């Protein structure tokens, strides 16, 4: 058993699982916005990055880790809501290229502003978890208290989002607004408010993700910290189907594990190549994603 847990295959699976959970969270935050607004949020990494700087750089030294995390999340929710109210609301019903340009613009501006304020030097975020792998019978197993923290947090966030959508009145209204905005209004649902809430929720999920990524001792926080991870999260969302939260998470985790094996058995330079091949092939075979049942897009 010990030998199995410390084997090369198992350590790839565990390492891939940890990364995959992060990709799954990014994909989930993309799906949350795509389903309600039909917009691909290219700033889905940059908006949470700013929130993470606010919480984890300004407050962490005085307040400690957990209160700073709460501040980061609240900032993220606010940034998401404000972006929808102030910018995105003007984009509904415009040609699809408009939101793409605007969201890429926001990404560039936010990364520039963050670099101007906080510089591009990685900031370590002191946190209660050790990044050093545990050992079994003298051999390392690809799990640390930090990676367990990442996995558990991701599971909690995913379950919380699922429970919100499935069991609460608010979740029902969020889903209805996304599927049938006009009918929802006729039933009294404040669809505009639901859209704002969707952006807040998505950026909140993104902020938790960014806090996890930046808390990693080996990564730290930089203005570009989410760029690469956003790319993998986007691939996961596209492969799983942008309409499907479950698909996003499952393909995020699967992508993480596959890429870990690629990095270990082939070459770490092959990772992004293989990811792109997976994207292209899946778009050719199932353009609407593996987990999307019907091909009809909301109009």
């Amino acid at each position, binding site marked *: 058993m010990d030998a199995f847990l410390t084997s090369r295959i198992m350590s790839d699976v565990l390492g891939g699982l940890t990364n995959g959970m992060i990709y799954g969270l990014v994909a989930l935050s993309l799906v949350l916005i795509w389903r309600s607004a039909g917009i691909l949020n290219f700033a889905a990494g940059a908006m949470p990055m700013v929130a993470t700087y606010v919480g984890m750089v300004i407050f962490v030294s005085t307040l400690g880790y957990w209160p700073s995390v709460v501040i980061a999340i609240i900032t993220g929710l606010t940034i998401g809501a404000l972006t929808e109210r102030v910018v995105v609301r003007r984009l509904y019903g415009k040609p699809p290229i408009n939101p793409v340009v605007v969201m890429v613009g926001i990404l560039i501006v936010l990364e520039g502003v963050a670099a101007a304020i906080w510089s591009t030097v990685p900031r370590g975020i002191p946190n209660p978890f050790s990044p050093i792998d545990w050992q079994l019978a003298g051999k390392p197993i690809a799990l640390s208290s930090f990676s367990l923290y990442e996995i558990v947090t991701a599971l909690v966030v995913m379950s919380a989002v699922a429970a919100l959508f499935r069991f609460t009145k608010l979740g029902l209204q969020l889903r209805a607004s996304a*599927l049938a905005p006009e*009918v929802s209004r006729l*039933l*009294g*649902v404040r669809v505009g408010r639901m859209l704002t809430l969707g952006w807040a929720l998505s950026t909140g999920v993104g902020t938790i993700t960014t806090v996890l990524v930046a808390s990693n001792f080996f990564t730290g926080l930089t203005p570009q910290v989410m760029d690469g991870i956003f790319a993998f999260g986007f691939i996961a969302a596209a492969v799983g189907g942008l309409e499907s939260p479950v698909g996003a998470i499952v393909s995020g985790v699967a992508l993480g594990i596959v890429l870990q094996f690629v990095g270990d058995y082939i070459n770490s330079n092959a990772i992004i190549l293989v990811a792109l091949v997976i994207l292209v092939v899946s778009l050719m075979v199932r353009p609407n994603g593996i987990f999307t049942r019907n091909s009809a897009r909301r109009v």
Partner: protein
Amino acid sequence: MITVTSLSVAYGAVQALRDVSFQAGAGQITAVLGANGAGKTTLLRTISGLVTPTQGRVDFGSTALVGRRAEEIARLGVGHVPEGRGVISEFTVEENLRLGSMFNKTPLAKGLAEQYELFPALGERRKQHAAKLSGGERQMLAMARALIAEPTVLLLDEPSLGLAPLVTAQLMKTIKDLCEKKKLTVILVEQNAVTALRISSHAVVLNLGRVVADDDASVIGEDENLRQYYLGMSS
């Protein structure tokens, strides 16, 4: 009671409603009849706040509706079953009904029980996705979803569209019974004039956005000119 006064609506250069005035009495069924493009659907969409008129007013009792948002008008007690029913296919029967009962005061379980008693077919399929329902069942679900919100006014847009004659007859009977039992004010938009006039007490005929007749349903039903030119009924 719904009072429509001098209502005009334009979509760009196209005038959809011109100076429309009529009253839908409380606890009565008012039929709105007319050919395709007469402005019937636009009229309902304007009453429920989805379309903003260029002029005129809509009053619900003493409350002015023009200028309010659709979601607010819905919460005031104006239920609207849109053309094509607007059932959410991805939702189960019960989720559709839960969405309808979001803003009423009656507990959900009681509201559901009431609707399942009224439409037993829905009770049997409560866990099924609405996509699996037949046309008649979808119409029932759309009605039940509007009713569970406990509206005072019910706007029905072509409820008989695509339904078999027998199903339509049943549906019309249900509408009439509901109107009497719940003291509902119903505005019933129909292309199928015969069916609609049978259960209505009052009727308004629209043609190219104008009111061409506004009278008791029985009077409208007897009028040879109206029957021939506007209602497509042979004499």
